[in-house]
């Protein structure tokens, strides 16, 4: 990744904020709602400035280990299928909330996100804190463009992630959105 920080994975003691947080949009924009991660990331990149490193990842998910290793905070945005209403936003904190095995029916990724988290734990390659935003998908059909239910939630997720990053940086604006599952 061209956006990657130091290869050692250990951060210098007074690292600038950009090295502290990484936000990763996971998904394939050619598979309808699977593209929600990259879509949210594109907005965040515009609005978030130097709050984090902004990275998109489409298939090769083991890259996540390198991308987030040593970061103070990693936020991953991905489409999910859990049976909730399309557009439902799930916010899961690694170590606090159970992260269920990914419904493979909806996964276009070679190694599913929960597996990458499992690898990260086993190999000691985790960020200090990992938050996953999963947006319930309506469709994984081929083609560009999000479904209406998912598209409507994009501004909310962008807002929440920005609040999360500001809070983690120590300068909370108080504009934090709901902490748990948000129903569409």
């Amino acid at each position: 990744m061209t956006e990657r920080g130091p290869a050692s994975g250990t951060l210098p003691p007074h690292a600038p904020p950009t090295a502290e947080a990484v936000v990763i949009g996971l998904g394939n924009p050619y598979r309808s709602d699977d593209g929600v991660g990259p879509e949210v990331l594109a907005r965040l990149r515009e609005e978030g400035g130097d709050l984090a490193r902004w990275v998109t990842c489409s298939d090769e998910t083991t890259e996540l280990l390198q991308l987030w290793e040593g970061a103070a905070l990693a936020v991953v945005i991905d489409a999910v299928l859990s049976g909730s209403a399309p557009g439902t936003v799930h916010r899961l904190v690694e170590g606090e909330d159970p992260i269920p095995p990914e419904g493979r029916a909806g996964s276009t990724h070679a190694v599913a996100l929960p597996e990458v988290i499992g690898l990260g734990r086993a190999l000691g390659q985790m960020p200090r804190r990992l938050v996953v935003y999963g947006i319930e998908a309506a469709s994984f059909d081929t083609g560009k463009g999000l479904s209406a239910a998912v598209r409507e939630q994009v501004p909310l997720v962008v807002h929440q992630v920005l609040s999360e990053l500001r809070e983690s940086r120590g300068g909370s604006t108080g504009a934090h959105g709901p902490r748990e599952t948000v129903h569409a």
Partner: protein
Amino acid sequence: MTERTVAVNYVARVEGEGALRVRIEQQRVREVELRIFEPPRFFEAFLRGRAYTEAPDITARICGICPVAYQMSAAHALERIAGIEVSGTVRALRRLLYAGEWIESHALHIYLLHLPDFLGFPDAVHLAERHPEIVKQGLELKRAGNQVMETLGGRAIHPINVRIGGFYRCPTSEEMRTLRSPLERALAQAEATARFVATLTFPQVQEDYQFVALRHPEEYPMNQGRVVSSSGLDLPVERFEEAFQEQQVPWSNALQSRSKEGGTYLVGPLARFALNRDRLTPRAAELAKELKVPSPVLNPFQAILVRALEVVVACEEALRIVRDYREPSEPFVPAPTPFPGGVGQAATEAPRGLLYHRYEVGQDGLIREAKIVPPTAQNQARIEEDVRHLVERSVEAEDAQLQDACERAIRNHDPCISCATHFLRLDLQRN
């Protein structure tokens, strides 16, 4: 009970998703259907009306694991129409980029997807918990491939630096020098990997494959060569469609390929190795001899060993190109204007096997027609035969065991169901 169906609704550790249904009657295998679900012709339709210069970047999006293969087959096919030939250093850089993809894709498959089968772990996470050093080595090896892709492709996953005629920008000598030590380390790791996987216990199976691969006068094939087969076929790439045809089967969205005589065939590492053993790079050739790798390898479980040898080939080639590098004066050969238009075909060796592209482009530079024949679509019918033979041999086994064995038989061939189309689920029916 005389009939049973064994279903694997998702075949784990297969890139993408698919399903397998096996129907057994009176202890005999009646049907084996490997199902692939994604609308396969999406990208072909999507390419129509687009500028020919866009094809490498659009087709790269078909697969996150082998984008270079798609870029290369597209670029070569379109260069044939443009009447340009890429040679010298720029050609070598393309081979380096391809080597990076082989290292990345094969390391991922060997360590994270295939090795757990041989070491008795349900997946890579369990393997990593017990043997973190093994998985770390695999990830480190894979990273060397990523680094090559980053240096040449602009980024690791969907390289954006490839264009018709070459590259948008060639790396500086300084940038290329930074690849040396990771590649030297990767070569040592690749050799260690081959020695390690040679010690695994392989189920004793022999299949009678018809192998199809590219063959180049001097090189282990990646970007160029003639289409050859183990039954004596030897054709220029532009005649590929005379020898192989695609057919629709009711249970799959991917078109299945067969030879014109109707037989199934296999592309990929086993085929490349069988048809190009005399083109291995020096250390890979020595290792193949030292490890007593048979010629050809007909046991599909030993594909892991052949992949490991191919990682050695890719590392040796990458190092040679990096060492010999001198920045070229021009990063690409320009296409003539006005664009001549016409039909062009090309095949390159994706990590999973021969990838054929054909384009028809108008004189306005817009694509009229695109045809893409990915390796997994070509292997699909042959994988079904492997599964059929496996079930015939183990028909007495419990369903759970049989399901597991079927999954392993499929994983041997590293099917990329998201490029052939998508996905896999397994359904074993017994009565």
